[in-house]
């Protein structure tokens, strides 16, 4: 049984078909990348899987269970956590509270070991991404790079079985990119059964971490395979022609 199984997923917006008959799967412990030029439907795909958009047709199965059409918070509580392409912090809350919101959810609360309080657990999560210094800072005062890490800490707080990252490297400088790559690798090692899906633009960052890559173009899956195969794939090169790799 696959951890995540997406079958023939389609989403139309008026005349535009954003996701067209896309099928793929993610297994436990896999890190899968989804790439494609702008507008290829990557983020829409994320919204569909995480419940923020309803598909027109197709099914989504998580751990064997059909989750198509479920509300986003229910999907989150089933074990799928996602980040957003444009960071969405809770601006009025301090950094630590941002993480605590996720811990307060039914799933987060379940996973807290009984001796640890919410705050201590949140501090642990912040330590994992290196944000403890900013713990009490209202999120609105925090810089972009740190907010990206906060996104991830919040998603991790749900202790998901499937972690979906939407362009986590967006807007990061090389140092931050390196740090994030190492963080993702460490998270993967710490939780070997967790599946990770990463949508990304910057291929070079992705290639080091993912095991398998899916390529989308205009809503359709045009290629799938190991990173080395994909970079040699003629169709993919055509589609990305002129775009920096």
């Amino acid at each position, binding site marked *: 049984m696959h951890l995540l199984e997406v079958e023939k997923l389609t989403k139309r917006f008026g005349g535009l078909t954003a996701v067209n008959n896309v099928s793929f799967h993610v297994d436990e412990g896999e890190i899968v990348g989804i790439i494609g030029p702008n507008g290829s439907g990557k983020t829409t795909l994320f*919204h569909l899987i995480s*419940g*923020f*958009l*309803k598909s027109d047709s197709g099914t989504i199965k998580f751990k064997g269970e059909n989750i198509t059409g479920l*509300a*986003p918070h229910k999907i989150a509580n089933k074990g799928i956590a996602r980040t957003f392409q444009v960071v969405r912090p809770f601006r009025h809350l301090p950094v630590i509270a941002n993480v605590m919101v996720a811990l307060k959810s039914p799933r987060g609360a379940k996973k807290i070991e009984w001796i640890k309080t919410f705050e201590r657990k949140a501090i642990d999560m912040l330590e994992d991404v290196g944000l403890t210094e900013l713990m009490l800072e209202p999120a609105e005062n925090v810089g972009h790079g740190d907010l990206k890490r906060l996104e991830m800490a919040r998603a991790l707080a749900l202790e998901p079985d499937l972690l979906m990252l939407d362009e986590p490297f967006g807007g990061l400088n090389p140092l931050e990119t390196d740090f994030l790559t190492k963080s993702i690798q460490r998270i993967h090692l710490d939780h070997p059964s967790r599946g990770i899906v990463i949508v990304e633009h910057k291929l070079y960052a992705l290639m080091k971490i993912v095991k398998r890559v899916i390529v989308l173009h205009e809503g359709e899956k045009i290629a799938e395979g190991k990173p080395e195969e994909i970079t040699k794939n003629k169709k993919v090169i055509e589609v990305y022609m002129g775009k920096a790799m």
Partner: protein
Amino acid sequence: MVEIELIQSILVYGAISGGMYALLALGFTLIYGVSDVINLAHGSLFMIGTYIFFVLATPYGGIQIGLLPALILAAIFVAVIGAVTFRLTVHPVIGDPLSIMVVTISFAMIIQESMVLGFGSYRQPVPSLAEGLATIWGVKVTYSKILAFVASLALFAILMTFVTKTKIGRAMRAVSQDREVAMLMGINTEMLYLLTMGISASLAAVAGMLITSSTAGVTYPHIWPQQLYLSFAVVILGGLGSIKGSLVGAFIISYVENTFVFAIDPIIADILNLPVGGSLSGAVIMATMLLVILVRPKGLFGKRVELEE
């Protein structure tokens, strides 16, 4: 058992009120569309217009000029008041909807009490724009109402043309769709806000003069809340920021109101053995708005929701 006269009355009066409500709502939706401001003082601007008209067009205070000059002067004066007040009180807190509400409510209270001080709490006359009675389709309608109706629709049409065809109008639409992009394109949003506010205020004033002169023919310091609610109902139902929405919403509200007053209310009164009550028509209008919102959370023509489950 439905009388033809009843239907005709509803159709004719519904249309007439609809046109005027559209003008009233237009100002409100315009300033919202461009600057995201909910102007709780919209009814007050309506009211100032009626009072200026009263002062200028009747012998009161020793001044009396013609109806049309009075109308125009009042519109200009209220436009200035609106724009200046906006700049001084609303602009500093723009983007903070609650502070804007506080500021506009306070302004409305100041205006209300100023009118009480200046003219007393009792009713003051607002002159009719025309004399005489006409018969449209079997229904007796005053020329005053017809004129007000025609004027309302004419102004509405003029404004629609302005917004769609002129450069400034296009700037207004650009800002209402995406403020940041518009600013990047070099549009001076600050001036645009003032201009829009001036237009919105003058529309409210003109609507005020047309509506009061053609219906009860009076104005008083507590006339503004009802006009405010009416504007809300129309604009919410039609969709905030949508000009088309104000027009459609105005007619829907107007027809619901007139159907209720002419047809349904008397029936209920018969059944429940209660006297006919005008008090329920406000509630009916609001209920209609609620029903539409439940089906369309952003009004009939409001911007679509982007992301939801």
